[in-house]
């Protein structure tokens, strides 16, 4: 049918027109990457995340799948896989929502107001409830480590393993500072 692809095209175009950097994965307009900035006035400010969007065949009647490629510390995002628990994506999707809605409204809202009662990342949820300041610190930390503009595009695996190694090394020897920890 021609009409679904028109809708997809429109949505993609609208997304691009709203100054989002969109990178197609294949030519079928099914999957693509979008670079998403952390919302202002949240601890996620300044962080940049690459988000993978997959539009199902039945789009717009079915919701798109959203996943964070690089790590983010958030109660409703699974740290390992990057999958997002967002009710409007899963439960209350309507064919009238579009991608711009997702990136302009839903994701920023989720980052600004996490929902600790339904967490994918339990530790983050617990920390947020117990000690808000520490939680925000940790968020910023993760942004520093994983959500810098240069982090987008490069894979994340080798980085994290570096970090862990260096920490362990440090634990064993007091004297030697470990080279190159904070700036990879």
């Amino acid at each position, binding site marked *: 049918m021609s*009409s679904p692809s028109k809708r997809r095209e429109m949505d993609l175009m609208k997304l691009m027109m709203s100054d989002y950097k969109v990178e197609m994965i294949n030519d079928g307009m099914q999957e693509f990457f979008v670079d998403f900035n952390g919302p202002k006035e949240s601890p996620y400010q300044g962080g940049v995340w690459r988000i993978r969007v997959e539009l199902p065949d039945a789009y717009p009647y079915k919701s798109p799948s959203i996943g964070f490629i690089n790590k983010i510390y958030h109660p409703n995002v699974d740290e390992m896989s990057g999958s997002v628990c967002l009710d409007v994506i899963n439960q209350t999707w309507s064919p009238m929502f579009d991608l711009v809605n997702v990136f302009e409204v839903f994701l920023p809202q989720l980052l600004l107001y996490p929902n600790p009662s339904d967490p994918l990342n*339990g530790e983050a949820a617990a920390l947020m409830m117990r000690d808000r300041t520490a939680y925000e610190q940790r968020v910023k930390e993760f942004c520093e480590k994983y959500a810098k503009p240069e982090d987008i595009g490069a894979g994340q695996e080798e980085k994290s393993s570096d970090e862990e190694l260096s920490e362990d090394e440090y634990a064993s020897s007091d004297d030697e500072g470990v080279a190159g*920890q904070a700036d990879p």
Partner: protein
Amino acid sequence: MDGGNKQEPSSTATSKQQSAMRKTRRGGGKQNHRCLQIEETRTLNNLESSSTSPPQSQSQSHEPTTSAPSFVRRRHKWASRNPGAHVVKPRFVKKSELGCFNEQVGSLNEQVGSLNEQVESFSVVEREIGQQEKKRTVVIGDSGEHAEVSESGKGEEDDDDDAVSRLEELELGVEEPELSEEQLRINDQAQEDELLAMESIFGDNFFVFERQRGLRSFQIHIHIESPGEIAISTKLNSSIDLKTARSSSDDFSYSFTVQHLPPIMLTCLLPKSYPSHRPPYFTISVQWLDSIKISNLCSMLDSLWMDQQGQEVIYQWVEWLQSSSLSHFGFDKEIMLGPYGIRDAGDRRALTGSVSPDADIPFLQSYNNDRLHENFRNSLHECCICFSEYAGAEFIRLPCMHFFCWKCMKTYSDMHVKESTIIKLKCPDTKCRGMIPPGLLKRLLGDEEFERWESLMLVKTLESMSDIVSCPRCKTPCLADEDDHAQCSKCFFSFCKLCRERRHVGITCMTPEVKLRILQERQNYSQLDDDQKRREREIINDILSVKEILRDAKQCPSCNMAISRTEGCNKMVCENCGQYFCYRCEKGIEGYDHFRNGECELFPQETVQNWEAQMNPRQILGQIQADQAAVNGQLCPNCRQFNAKLNNNNHMFCWACQHHFCYLCKETVKRSSQHYGPKGCKQHTPG
């Protein structure tokens, strides 16, 4: 409005004149049709046939054609120039006699009742018509479903009969002056020209009747257009008292606005002596004006004729009625309906349909809605789901007034029914989520899928009712009382709601374990026949399955769906029926209050412990050390957590945020080999 051609001399209608008329026509772009129309008129005029509609326009060919012997309306003129559109004509209450006017409220209600009946019978006719149409677009109006309003022949005929009979009446009473042949011919030509001009100007709203005894007659629908909305209000008297036309202080006033008013119908019969000596015989018909006001309008037309006798006057009349009739009554800002219950003015030319506010208000509103709807149907709109553009006729409008194209609605409905997520099958508008009427769903889904929808809906509704159980024997839904006892109305089986066995007064239900044991023992009885054995075997399997399921799951208090919690907190929402409940105590809840007032914990102990364990043990140690050794330590520059200095080492590693910093200078350390050394801070110092 250009009125250039109203003074056409009675010359023969040459093609030049035709083109002149075409130019002065209002509106644009449909010239070819019009040409054709004029030709046909001439031909038909010449033939003087009494045939019904030639198959001209695709939309009107199925209209019920009644044959009134005295005249036959030119059906094709009714045909709208827009293919597929319908001309909306107002419907009148047939009034046999204006004079006998019953003031009792009761009989007024009766008349309203008969109007409703008429409306209903029209709807039936229209529905039948609608089904023959190829385009399956029935739009839901403000009161349930009905096919779009198209004119229904029956009512119109009556009203026009009325008008025409009045005209006859008027004509018979008057003696025609004797005129010369020449004069008659001049008049005849003038009339012909005028009719042609009117037709080209008014197009769809101009209807020529069959000649009556050689006299021309026609009807014009005069639409009062206004740029914005038209306000209408009326006083609703509690009683109608003719003698004292009082307006007591406790009258209610009802106001509303419309964008389209039902037209003024001017019906004319041209005598042979028009335009030289006599004016046309005319009647004015307005559904919503009372007879005195209409009579007033008639007088106005009379005076317009008087001002310039001997010249064509119809255009002037129409012009005046269209532009000045409202202001003539002082209705520029707002139209006041009524007064009701007044005696008829006695003017035979004034035809009113105004009976009571009960009939007029709905009539005006429904006419307005129909016109708005017609406009919608004829224009292009973009569907907000698929962004394709279609004519309004391809859209479906829901009762909440949101509209989407047919294709999208069908895809949407099909998908949800197929996946049994009918609870989500509501208006796609993000904020609205209004209901979709079942009748519409039936047309969208088709019979088979609609049946599926119905059964899903039934099951869902029944399950959400906690006191409805299905009879174990015949499966019909039964109502249970507070003792959990139910009796099936179909097979009269009396059973216990909880264990679904025969009713047991005073004895508690047999537990599944006991039942299982009994049944398993029975499997060994040789007295059981194979059938019975098999059935009981199945029951055993069922019980075992449920037992297995309930090992890891709990049941929703509302619909009993087994739900198992894999992670997260104790606040659960049942996917099947939407009920919120607490996983720990299986009670139905609303919000988080249940967890706040100390009944149950939000996160189970196990989960909390897991989180703690996940946290870096070194972190915890560091935190503990920081708490205890409050002597030597510093706040981390990054997260401001207190860190204890250990082993005289000035190089601090923050337990909270894993930040490296120097105890002495309190700055972040990037490379310790650079920071500490002879030039920088000392790494090990006591204290």
